């Protein structure tokens, strides 16, 4: 099975407080720690498990600037066979649709049976996988938390729906799936693994190699455009308890008693 996995480099929200920059044009990116989008690690792990079971190879692809190389290499250290960086000045400001069309151009150059994306990334859109499938005219299933290869024509997938219930489908290959967390346990990647792939070949494909016209992607092509960032004002918010830890504990215990929080 030839598998393509799409990965994105994103600020790690468990490591960073995300703040709006002084003129509201972006988030404060100075001290951010970046990593692979959480969902994408599950997608790569799933691809590795499929390959190790039935054979084939895994290509990891990311649309981004030079820094995206680091996340591609991390996924190669995890076990992907090769990586491709899709990067070009004209891709700057690409919206979800443009990202999908850039990836589609790369897909058209190869021969893949299965494409995996994460269920969503840092801006919570969950759009690239479904758009890519529609552009390719391939079937799609989102939020996949179970995957079983039946033969080289079809697979069985479980989609996680509301309440933790699961919707089971049979889906023809080639297809695109977005992977939900919890489908597997992504393996640990150590420093040694990363060192091993540090000098592995990593081709960079730009608009020219992909045959993409600059107007179709990037800022000018976008139908939806972020105009600013701001801090949400959602009413009063919580009463923050102040004081020493002892004092906070005292206050909280009183509040819990009055609200029936202690039985």
């Amino acid at each position, binding site marked *: 099975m030839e598998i393509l996995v799409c990965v994105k480099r994103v600020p790690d929200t468990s490591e960073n407080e995300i703040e709006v920059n002084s003129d509201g044009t972006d988030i404060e990116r100075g001290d951010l720690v970046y990593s692979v989008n959480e969902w994408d690690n599950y997608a790569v792990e799933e691809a590795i498990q499929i390959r190790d079971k039935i054979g084939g190879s895994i290509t990891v692809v990311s649309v981004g600037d030079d820094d995206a190389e680091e996340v591609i290499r991390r996924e190669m250290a995890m076990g992907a066979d090769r990586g491709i960086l899709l990067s070009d000045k004209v891709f700057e400001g690409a919206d979800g649709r443009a990202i999908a069309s850039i990836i589609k151009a790369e897909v058209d150059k190869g021969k893949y049976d299965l494409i995996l994306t994460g269920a969503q990334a840092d801006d919570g859109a969950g759009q690239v996988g479904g758009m890519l499938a529609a552009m390719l005219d391939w079937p799609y299933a989102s939020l996949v938390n179970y995957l079983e290869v039946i033969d080289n024509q079809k697979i069985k997938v479980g989609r996680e729906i509301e309440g933790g219930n699961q919707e089971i489908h049979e889906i023809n290959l080639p297809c695109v799936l977005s992977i939900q967390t919890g489908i597997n346990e992504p393996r640990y990647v150590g420093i040694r693994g990363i060192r091993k792939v540090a000098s592995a070949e990593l081709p960079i494909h730009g608009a020219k190699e992909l045959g993409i016209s600059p107007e179709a992607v990037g800022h000018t092509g976008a139908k939806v455009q972020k105009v600013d960032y701001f*801090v949400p004002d959602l009413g009063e918010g*919580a009463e923050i308890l102040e004081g020493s830890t002892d004092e906070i504990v005292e206050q*909280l215990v009183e509040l819990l008693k009055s609200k029936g929080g202690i039985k």
Partner: protein
Amino acid sequence: MAREVIAYIIHKEGIADDTAIEMISAAHKIDPDAKLIALVAGSGPQLDTVCNQIAASFQEVWKIDNEALAYPDAELIRPILTGILPSGSIVLFPNNTFGMDLTPGLSIKLDTAYLADVVDFEGIEKGKLKTVRQEYSGQVSTHVLCDISKGIIITVRPGAFKADESKTFNGSIIDKTNEAFQEGIPRVARRFLEIVEAEVGEVDITKSEILISVGRGIEDEDNLEIVFDLAEALGGDVSCSRPIVDAKWMEKSRQVGTSGQTVKPKVYIALGISGSFQHLGGIKGAPFIVAVNKNPKAPIFQIADVGVVQDLLDFIPELTDKINEIKG
């Protein structure tokens, strides 16, 4: 002619989802004068029940009735919608697991703009629709301008818009079935087989009055002990956010949220939980919410009643000791 806004209605067992009337206020924020059209697909008497219910709140109801639609399978519904949605329409869907499956591809097939998980609209200026979204699980918001000249597909966040039942219509129900199936039942490459229900676990957190809920901030499986100790002192049960289940530290039946359980406790104590909308979507009945988080900007503080900005690994044992001391 008034602008039309079409809302796709999710329903189950003859009852429309809450998001149906939430999309009415969403549509009015797009354009106060918009004509509201509900789009309802399904089959049989249950579909009629939904259409009749919805007709009271929408000016027009478009009904698509076919046995093949008894289960709402996005891969089947997408080609049908591609055939009947007028070009240039503004179409709203809920941002739930069905909307996520259906809509990105639909926008490509219709060649319209697309925007997912909108939490607010600020009207249309010079042909552009101004919307509000959140990023980084609610830590920051953005305004997004959308070119709607060729129409747009939008998913709206469940719960973000107030249910609007202020206006009552006696909307006409228009049967769009023939138009939708002009070319027969679409041949699709994905076949729905069955639903597997979530497993029942050892504790039923949906019945708990006091929930001590733990998230990724607990950092390590071994640290869970302090959470169970607190729960025991308070006489409550332990629940959790999704990453705790993903890590296999707790069973799925303890997960609170849209893809987990819906809980209705009196008191909800969120420990090291950031407050994503999928997590908060599982908390109903307006409990008294206490949040402990070391990040003062965590979105959970926007909805909590009381907040403690501390490292939970230090704070929880102190709290537990104090409670045990009082109880003697």
